């Protein structure tokens, strides 16, 4: 591990840009290709890269498995929560127009939060699945 200097330095330089690009994909989804799903996968890919170069133990110290599991569930809650907020404000489930006095802004807020929910769930799920696979050890049968 210690002699792969180019890999370690290269990964360390790349990871912040990958995270930033994921956020760009998330918030630029209204204007270009992208959205919560793609952003979540790219965000998870940054942590997968970190794990591949620096080892699973180190990435688990930065991002504990418990936090990842919470993320996977939290995203669905955010998404469904937007639906219940619109219900409480007198609209239909997931009808975002009631979120603001200007219906277009209501739609914007609704899409923003819903995509955030997708991002959080996809990110949590991808990293959790990766942890589950990478944490297994070879068993002699």
């Amino acid at each position, binding site marked *: 591990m210690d002699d792969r200097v180019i890999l370690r330095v290269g990964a360390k330089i790349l990871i912040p840009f990958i995270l930033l690009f994921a956020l760009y994909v998330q918030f630029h*989804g*209204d204007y270009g290709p992208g959205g919560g799903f793609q952003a979540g*996968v790219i965000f998870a*890919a940054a942590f997968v890269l970190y794990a591949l170069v620096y080892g*699973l133990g180190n990435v688990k110290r930065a991002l504990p498995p418990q936090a990842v599991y919470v993320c*996977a569930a939290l995203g669905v809650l955010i998404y*469904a929560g937007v639906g219940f907020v619109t219900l409480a404000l007198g609209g239909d489930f997931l009808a975002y127009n009631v979120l603001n006095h200007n219906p277009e802004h209501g739609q914007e807020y609704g899409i923003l939060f819903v995509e955030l929910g997708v991002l959080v769930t996809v990110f949590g799920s991808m990293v*959790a699945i990766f942890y*589950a696979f990478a*944490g297994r050890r070879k068993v002699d049968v």
Partner: protein
Amino acid sequence: MIEFVDVTLLVLLGVTSLVIIREQNLFAAVMLAGIYSLLSAGLFVVMDAVDVAFTEAAVGAGISTVLMLGTLALVGHQEHKPKRRPILPLFVVAVTGGVLVYGTLDMPSFGDPANPIHHHVAPHYLEESPHEIGVPNVVTSVLASYRGYDTMGETTVIFAAVVGVLLLLSRGPRPRRTVVNGTWRTVAYEEDPPEVEEDRDG
């Protein structure tokens, strides 16, 4: 020009899939599967489905490859020679494929503007999305607003998938059941194997 790109991508896809079938080294097969996904993403770009291409490149070529490599670390890199010649599976696969191709003959031809799909709700989405939703990318407005229920279902499916994977693969302490004096008993909890990671300071 676009035909040239189409033909090149399709030929490369065909070659890649044939090599994946023939390849005995699973490491090479996984890498080729990643290349296959990247070529598919290129085809989606040619078909102007950039959002789909984005997902294909990120999931198919990125995360799936890593997960397959993680699996290879457990099962080894070399494919075993099949003990018998798989004639019956080949027959089943060929018949199923033939039936599927036969089924596509009844479908409207690809890209025809008279197709039913282009006359159901798509015109409404394309014309009204700027006023009703106000988001420039129609894909996003369909995904998150017009079809918000579906996307919530998809998010839930991803969550359900991760719950399934964790139930199958997570390594909690397991009770061991053995026969003691003719009856099944839970005798002890298996300890987790000690962590043998290369984290030196963790």
